[in-house]
């Protein structure tokens, strides 16, 4: 009797185990780094995973950290499901943030009921427009969107930088920082004396919409067909180009909303460090969540937890906060590797004579 690895899909019961196995394996791999930083890995994982949840204040902070990640994760998922590899959510976030700022600073004498929806619409449209050119290039000219969307991220960042060092530069402090948005444009807080804001509810609503569209609607089914097999989708009479274009643009729009949420919920003005790579982390989250709305929500909360924990662990054990980034990056690589395991299973063979 011997064992053999065969290229047939893994049994159904094994699939949910794969993200879990990825997390465990990641911790095993990163333990070495923590040891090199002269800390006990088990202590470190305590601060990464348990400590943030042990107090109300830090638990709320996890949700604050998860808010932009829920949005960028949803944005990436929407594109990936439709077979469009949008790596440009980071740039779309900046486009949305810029639009929110431009609208928000002019809302001085306007009710919040008008100001906030206006900013959301403006941010969504800005994200969509930022996604439009690469999406058209993909659909009409078959130009690879991975490259174009990725490159546009730098362009977005430089444009924001130009704005902040030019017309929006603070005239008094000379800081590259825009004027503050109007008080009515600021997202209300969900819990007094915390940073948790309306954006979190918004993100949850978008996750629910994502779930609904992907699993309950004809358009969602078309998107999945296009993403999984463009040939078969075309054969079945689905307009592949149109479907892909819509999924790309909506993805960009959700990315824009993430930018609005950061401006109106956290910063109240535009700075060029508004996102420490939320758009890229969204790719990790969409992948970890296996392009499923609930999976994305869980993954965003998990990464939010590690982000919060990274602060505590560095304070408590004196290790660099970058360890959090390293863990996220390692997690993505391990997950991608582990996802391949879905295609295989181990079978027992009896030797034939």
């Amino acid at each position, binding site marked *: 009797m011997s064992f053999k690895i065969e290229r047939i*899909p893994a049994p159904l019961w094994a699939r949910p185990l794969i993200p879990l196995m990825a997390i465990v394996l990641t911790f095993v791999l990163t333990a070495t780094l923590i040891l090199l930083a002269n800390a006990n890995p088990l202590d470190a994982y305590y601060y990464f995973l348990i400590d943030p949840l042990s107090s109300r204040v830090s638990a709320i902070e996890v949700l604050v950290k998860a808010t932009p990640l829920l949005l960028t994760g949803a944005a990436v998922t929407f594109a990936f499901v439709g077979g469009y590899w949008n790596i440009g959510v980071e740039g779309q976030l900046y486009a949305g943030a810029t639009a929110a700022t431009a609208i928000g600073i002019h809302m001085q004498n306007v009710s919040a009921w008008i100001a906030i929806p206006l900013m959301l619409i403006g941010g969504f449209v800005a994200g969509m427009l930022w996604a439009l050119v690469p999406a058209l290039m993909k659909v009409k000219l078959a130009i690879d969107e991975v490259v174009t969307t990725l490159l546009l991220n730098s362009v977005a960042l430089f444009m924001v930088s130009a704005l902040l060092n030019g017309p929006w530069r603070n005239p008094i402090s000379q800081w590259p920082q825009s004027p503050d948005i109007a008080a009515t444009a600021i997202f209300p807080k969900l819990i007094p004396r915390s940073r948790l804001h309306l954006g979190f509810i918004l993100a949850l609503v978008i996750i629910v919409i994502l779930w609904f569209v992907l699993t*309950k*609607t*004809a*358009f*969602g*089914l*078309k998107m*999945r*067909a296009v993403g*999984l*097999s463009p*040939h*078969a*989708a*075309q*054969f*079945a*009479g*689905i307009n592949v180009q149109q479907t892909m274009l819509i999924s790309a643009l909506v993805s960009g729009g959700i990315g824009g909303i993430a930018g609005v949420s950061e401006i109106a919920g956290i910063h109240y003005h535009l700075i060029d460090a508004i996102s420490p790579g939320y758009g890229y982390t969204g790719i990790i989250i969409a992948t970890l969540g296996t392009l499923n709305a609930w999976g994305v929500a869980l993954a965003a909360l998990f990464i939010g937890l590690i982000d919060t924990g990274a602060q505590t662990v560095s304070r408590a054990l004196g290790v660099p906060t970058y360890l959090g980034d390293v863990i996220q990056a390692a997690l993505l690589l391990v997950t991608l590797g582990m996802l391949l395991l879905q295609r295989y299973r181990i079978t027992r063979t009896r030797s034939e004579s």
Partner: protein
Amino acid sequence: MDRPNAIEMRHIYKRFGSLVASDHVNFMLCQGEIHALLGENGAGKTTLMRILYGLYHADSGEIVVNGQAAEIKSPKDAIAVGIGMVTQHFALVPPLTVTENIILGYTDGFQINLNEAHRRVAEASEKFGIPVEPKALVKDLSVGQRQRVEILKALYRNANVLIMDEPTAVLVPQEVEQLFESLERLRRQGLSVIFISHKLNEVMTITDRVTVLRLGENAGTVETQSTSPPELARMMVGRETFGVTKTAGKPSQGKIVLELAQVAALDNKGLPALKNITLQVRAGEILGLAGVSGNGQTELAQVLDGTRLVTAGQIKVLNHDITNVGPEKVMAAGVGRIPEDRHESVVAELSVAQNMALEHLDEFTRQGVLNKKTLLEHAKKLIAEYQIKASPGDKIRTLSGGNMQKVILARVLERNPQVIIVAQPTRGLDVGATEYVRGKLLEQRRKGAAILLISEDLDEILELADTIAVIYEGEIMDILPAAAAETERLGLLMSGVKADKVGA
């Protein structure tokens, strides 16, 4: 022939699963001859040659090269005993030069002296009379030039036996002429060539002897001079008369439902794949389109499916013009489509129920929201009706080929289409599933559907079709009633010999 044998393949037996691809085949190749290997699709030509070149291993049998038993386990062994092979898909690296491609994998030592290599390649080019430009990049060369590089590569490695797998399939007529001149010259220098082909004209022109394979067996070896295209066609197809099992003998009198007028289209490489196709299919008729694979059948099916644009001509269903209108409108005109590649018509990762609804999602949707219940009931109904072994929630990927084909069949036939475009419907299916699919097609014919059956399986066409059209290099060679279709004539037509030339 009195010359010694360059290659002797004796009792070569090879099985793939339950399929015997080579059934104790004997094949002898003389030194300095061009020897054709002729046969239908799946007759075992390529299998036999892959065994000779070490790509497959025979289950039993022996190979003798120049009088000595040879054990050929890999192409490396084949090259070592002087066998070279040129396939339809060239093994060249496009960004490298001709010289680099030729010496690739055939260099000793670590360092490469490129100037020396260029000189030697130029020398070989001169000696064998195969003009190539050593310093040219392969990506800049035409298909014919690339083929010359492949041939020179084999000769440079001291091949004295050259296997050419359908070398003319990729060439334009002028290139074919040049190739034949080169082969003729090389033969005079003592090279032996095995020439795999379906094309009788070419075989008659270039070869000394012909070995015909049929269903994995050697159907005979003949001298080209003493044979004729009709005899070869008869040997290839191997049936004297056909037992037509259908009920109706007389052609359908139904009205013309599907009409193609002078349709032309390009293949994926942008070369003409269909030229001037004119066909009519009547209600209650199965028109079988016969032909050797790669003669435009795939493109014709795609043109009718709405997934490939025509460059000229018109396609009509009754009075609707469906030329270049796309899949949705083609279906709306009452055309059901069962394509050649099952995997390109279903989404493997979606469920049976979802795939069954995919072509008409609007009917399962209210205000954009899918109605799970109707989706499920629809699937259950079809699964029961078509005896599909699956449940509605199973992913298509998990189904066997037969069940997958039944899903596609159910999706198409439940709508009682006026026209059915069906390509290679039983390819890869077991006997039971094959019978089922064929039965369903005959049932639709009784109901009055106009069916275009595209198949490379001649038996299938003979069993089902009322009328047979033969396609060759993108053109319809002839259209004849099934009752009048004789083996010899079909074989000739499929090999590109026009009916009026027979016996001339």
